[in-house]
């Protein structure tokens, strides 16, 4: 069976800079893989290529065996891959439910006009990421950073995604919020969601991933279980600058 996400020999050059250098890895069905590396290693660039925000210089990106390397971002999302951003990007004048509604909409304009929003599903998604009843009609301006992350995840879930890319989900969160988001990810894992997670917070990441891929200067430097990768000399060097 083909993997939900498979990246082969991915290369991305920005002029003379090689941001992604012959990177290959895959994520298996229902698995959660952590993508780690020091600042500037090219983690976010990998995300941007998977989502089609940047076009790869060469290499292939496959979703469930299907090459998505030439598709537009909305097309990829409809095929089942979706991401959150390090800095949440909500629709500022809309309520939590309306934000989720945008994720849930059909891409056909005719259907947007003729179908009514599915309020039950919107509320179900909102509750599933941990929004209380009182939060549903708040606007993003009234939400905490942790809630904004939840909202990003809720809108992503609403698109019907089965492969979720999380970019620095724990950045800027309080300890309590980190615990909440971690619990949420665990719950979604047990429901069968496939994850690729970028995080600097390795302690928070450890219980959430089945394996790690470590990159530096766009190249893969290690791959394996959390303990294996953490014990790897070049990983330690890239993070700490010492052997």
């Amino acid at each position: 069976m083909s993997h939900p996400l498979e990246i082969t020999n991915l290369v991305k050059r920005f002029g003379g800079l090689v941001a992604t250098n012959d990177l290959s890895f895959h994520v298996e069905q229902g698995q959660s893989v952590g993508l780690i590396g020091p600042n500037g290693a090219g983690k976010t660039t990998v995300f941007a290529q998977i989502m089609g925000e940047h076009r790869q210089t060469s290499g292939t990106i496959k979703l469930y065996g299907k090459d998505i390397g030439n598709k537009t971002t909305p097309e990829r999302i409809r095929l089942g891959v979706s991401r959150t951003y390090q800095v949440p990007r909500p629709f500022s004048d809309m309520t939590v439910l309306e934000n989720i509604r945008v994720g849930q909409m059909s891409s056909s304009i005719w259907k947007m006009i003729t179908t009514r929003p599915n309020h039950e599903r919107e509320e179900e998604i909102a509750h599933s990421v941990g929004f209380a009843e009182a939060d549903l009609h708040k606007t993003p301006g009234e939400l905490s950073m942790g809630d904004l992350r939840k909202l990003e995840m809720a809108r992503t879930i609403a698109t019907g995604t089965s492969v979720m890319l999380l970019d620095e989900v724990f950045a800027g969160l309080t300890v309590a919020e980190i615990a909440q988001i971690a619990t949420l990810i665990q719950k979604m894992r047990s429901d069968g969601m496939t994850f690729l997670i970028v995080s600097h917070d390795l302690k928070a990441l450890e219980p959430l991933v089945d394996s790690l891929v470590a990159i530096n200067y766009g190249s893969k430097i290690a791959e394996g279980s959390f303990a294996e990768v953490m014990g790897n000399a070049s990983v330690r060097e890239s993070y700490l600058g010492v052997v």
Partner: protein
Amino acid sequence: MTGIRWYHLALWIAFVAIMFVMPQLVSKGTLRIIIMANFLAIFAISWDVLSGRTGYISFGHPFLIGIGAYTSAILTKRFDVPLEVAMPIAVLMTMIGGIIVFLPALRIKGSYFALVTLAFMELIYQLVQVIRPDLTGGTRGMSGIKTITRGAVSNYYLSASLLIAIAFSMWLLMKTQLGIALSAIGMNEESVRGSGLSTTKLKLFAFLTSAFVAGIGGAFYVHYLGSIAPRALFDINFLFTIIVAALIGGASTIIGPIIGAFFLTFLLEFLRPYLPGAERYFIYGMVALLLYMYQPKGLIALMHTGWNKLTGAR
């Protein structure tokens, strides 16, 4: 951005009722002013469906209105095409114009987009004067264009019905999920793409809808006036009156541009006896500025707060 409520429909019925009895209440002179307000409201709605929602600020609306007006005027006057054929063709041509304005929106946004649309207006202003002046009437424009009906009262009813039909259908359309998606583009276009929606398709739809309304408005307008003058049509003052009407009424709503259009038209008429010259525009600018600074969401938001204070709701 909520769904349809009973009081929405009540307000619509009240609006239609007031518009219906208006000729009994006011003089013919006032009626003629209201006709102009009706047309301004149609143009403001057209602008708002595009710019108020998606945030793609069009400075080129006179370009679209002009295509509608000129096409219908030329067809009826120069080629004796009947009105009922000329006007749909005019609307179609305006929608093609809408696609032309849409093309830069694929690549640029913000003030750059606004400037490009402004260039469209300047371009057509120059073009109608030099290309085939035998058709367009050149710098002097055209007069003696066929009118649809005669007299203040019937012209009033025609423009009012047109406004009500356009406003109500746009209101219904914007109450659907499409309205939310278009507003979402104005808030964060990247996130709309990130939600799996094609912003290209949505924007094209917004431009076509806006052009459709502008085309209808332009065609009816020229057959009401019976004349067309490029200097008055492709005029920055005309453009800003449309935009200010939408903004001080309340952008991203339907009733807002209508209120704004009536407010502006009557403000200018009210000032006319005191300040017959262009000084009126100074006062009008000040009023618009103050209102906008006090409540950027427009008169509609002010009225909402007022109503809530009256009824004691929070």
